[in-house]
């Protein structure tokens, strides 16, 4: 038994070394650094500092990511619902071809596009003015928290829709037809019959989106002003301007905690389902 297990270990050794060296070591190191004083004693002083300086940004980050996740969910349900239930072939065809595009655009490019689109004299406002919908003086810039949310939702909706539309397509069509046959409108069919059958997929998509949005640096940095801003920007600032890894690490641990809460909700839901089944 000793020899085969030794060779087995040898085979997975490179992969293990990669995970250990590039993921576990830095993670462990930053965790330890967040809880260690300069003289080596354990303490929460970095967290105190992070809280004093960035408590508004922590709330701002949670607000941005939660609102973006909810909006992403709403838009994804609407698009996937149209793709699954619409009886207008041209609408389905157009939507199917268009909705995936943002998937292939990196966050930084999306952020750059939004800067020119959402600015006070950007493409969006200029179009409204040209259409006569508003006066040049009435235009306002969307380059603040709204800009971040718009960019996040624009970027994440295709991803969640892709998962959701796939799951909806694999739902037995007859369960949809049975609902309509009994008199349910398409909206009711979507909300009461289709969505509960794909809830698991929606939850996975939203959890993944939540964690992704929590970790994006370029969008809050480029789209919005400096105050308040998201934790990623603060972390970059602590490191680049002060070389203050300790406070940056403490902010990182707070981000883990926020992401961990969502992961916990997801896992709990999963276990509940397994117990029921």
């Amino acid at each position, binding site marked *: 038994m000793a020899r085969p297990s030794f060779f087995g270990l040898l085979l997975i050794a490179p992969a293990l070394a990669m995970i250990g060296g590039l993921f576990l070591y830095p993670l462990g190191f930053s965790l330890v650094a967040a809880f260690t004083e300069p003289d080596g004693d354990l303490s929460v002083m970095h967290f105190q500092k992070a809280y004093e300086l960035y408590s508004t940004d922590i709330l701002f980050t949670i607000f941005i990511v939660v609102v973006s996740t909810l909006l992403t969910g709403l838009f994804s349900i609407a698009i996937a619902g149209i793709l699954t239930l619409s009886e207008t072939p041209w609408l389905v065809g157009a939507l199917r071809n268009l909705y995936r595009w943002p998937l292939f655009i990196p966050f930084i490019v999306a952020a750059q596009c939004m800067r020119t689109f959402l600015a006070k004299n950007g493409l969006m406002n200029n179009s409204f003015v040209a259409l006569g919908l508003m006066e040049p003086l009435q235009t306002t810039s969307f380059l603040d928290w709204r800009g971040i949310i718009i960019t996040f939702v624009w970027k994440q909706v295709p991803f969640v829709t892709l998962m959701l539309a796939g799951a909806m397509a694999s739902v037995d069509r007859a369960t949809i*037809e049975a609902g309509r046959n*009994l008199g349910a409108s398409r909206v009711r069919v979507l909300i009461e019959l289709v969505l509960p059958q794909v809830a698991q997929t929606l939850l996975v998509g939203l959890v993944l989106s939540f964690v992704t949005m929590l970790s994006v640096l370029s969008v809050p940095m480029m789209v919005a002003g400096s105050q308040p801003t998201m934790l990623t920007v603060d972390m970059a600032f602590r490191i680049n301007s002060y070389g203050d890894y300790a406070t940056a690490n403490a902010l990182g641990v707070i981000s883990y905690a926020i992401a961990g809460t969502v992961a916990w909700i997801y896992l709990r839901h999963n276990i509940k389902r397994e117990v029921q089944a």
Partner: protein
Amino acid sequence: MLHGVSLSVVPGEFIAILGSSGCGKTTLLRTIAGFQKASGGAIRLFGRDVVNMPPERRGMAMMFQSYALWPHMTVLGNVGYGLRLRGVPKDEIRSRVAKVLAMLNLTGFEDRKVTNLSGGQRQRVALGRALAIEPEILLLDEPLSNLDAKVRIQLRSEIKALQSRLGFTAIHVTHDREEAMTMADRIVVMDTGRIAQVGAPKEVYDHPNSPFVASFMGAENTLSLDVRPSGSGVEVRADEAPPALYSGEVPVGPVTAYFRDDVASLDDPNARVDGSIVLPGNITQRTYPGGHYRYVVAIGNRHFTVTDDRYHELARPVGLRLPLASLHMFSNNQTTGGNHA
């Protein structure tokens, strides 16, 4: 694709649409239900044209082959959904669902998950869901084909009994001839998007109007015959057999006769029976499926299956006796033959 399908259904009637797969029977049902748009023509429901009406407003209930129960709901949720859509109060839904479940021998199943039920129970729940809204028309899309034989036969009679009791109109799509025969008041046989024949089960079975219907209703053996006028009746000749006289109504000239295994019987090879044709041949195989023997008789280079109560030795010359009244004869000049055995 459906071509020139015209069918009138009387309220309270049980209609079975019978056909092989791809003949358009499910398309017809789905067009009636509104899931498939008709490019032309009309579907009149009590005089009202519903062709452009969405399925949810047609007021029909449908049973699906795959049960189509909603897995996230309980039995109560599934059966009561149609009532919930109609704004019926919760307490009333519960009592009406209980009544429906009692009718289907599912009393006490309200709070069970539908995923924990057997196939037969699921299809009963699906029937309950359709019947709970008290529809005037029930559409059945091969609802029994996923069930095992015993449950299928039991559900057949349950559906039929409920239909006679509650008086709804039923349109049942199936490829199972026996199912159609036992359940329906009238059978519609479909062939490549067209209605081939409509009639009572016995009428379609005993008097098919085309070679297709004859072979679909089980008369899959074919025999070429020559019919000539003779005196007051006709003289029927087969290649291998002595001519037989017959006074019934048959087409004259070269014909193809279609017959079921069970109309043939074994006789003496030289027997001459009025109104029957006797083909001389040899027994090549004998099996005993229970109750009677089944023989394979070789006549020339053709083989026919015959059931007979008596025991016969193999390789014995016998006569295959076919009563002319039980043959379905179609003139070769009208039919193109088709793909018959």
